[in-house]
């Protein structure tokens, strides 16, 4: 699901990925993991990412999910399986980390009827 041709009717995952990276950086870029604020961070990240995507005004439904995990030496894996139209729909996943935490954001874009 990595292809993006920039033509009408397909999801541009590179552009979405860049928007999401900026989002994450602006919200938790300088922060250390704190249990009492992580709720707000994940909520802000998904809301801001969703707002940026919707502003592109393409006819897509969006699902944005975000996981923030404290760095403690533990491993984390995510996997997605999607049943959709591979021509018009797409996804992108962004992995980000700093000294104290990991952040994984997944964006799924499902096209409305052509």
């Amino acid at each position, binding site marked *: 699901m990595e292809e993006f041709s920039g033509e009408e009717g397909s999801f541009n995952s590179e552009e979405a990925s860049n928007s999401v990276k900026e989002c994450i950086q602006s919200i938790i870029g300088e922060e250390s993991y704190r249990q009492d604020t992580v709720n707000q961070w994940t909520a802000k990240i*998904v809301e801001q990412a*969703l707002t940026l995507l919707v502003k592109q005004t393409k006819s897509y439904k969006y699902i944005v999910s975000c996981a923030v995990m404290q760095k403690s030496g533990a491993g984390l894996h995510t996997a997605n399986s999607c049943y959709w139209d591979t021509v018009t729909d797409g996804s992108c996943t962004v992995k980000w980390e700093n000294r104290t935490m990991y952040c994984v954001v997944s964006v799924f874009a499902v096209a409305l009827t052509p």
Partner: protein
Amino acid sequence: MFYCAHENNLGGRWRFEGVRFKAAVVKECIRDILREQLSGVQYDPDEVGVLSRSLADCIKDKLKDVGFDRYKLVVQVVIGEQRGEGVKMAARCFWDADTDSYAQDIFMNDSLFCVAAAFGSYFY
């Protein structure tokens, strides 16, 4: 925590057909699969990548069998090692709240935790 914006930009008429994506039914499907496949499983960094992928495919196939014919499905599975670390997951969706929905379930044992979420988006 989910916020669904009600937005239907078709303008034309359409009528809902098929089985509605009911969260309770889907949650039960997910729960059964997680219990069946993860009971007694230990976190193994070499295998967990394959395991999470196969769980996601398994859940997606099961949901297709249940009969959500008019839905596009997205299934996300997250598996992590249990070391007492803090994890927080959130999602937001921009979709038609009348037709679209999601379900999730969590499985934990001493060695790992697993979060599975399934999102259904109606195809008009």
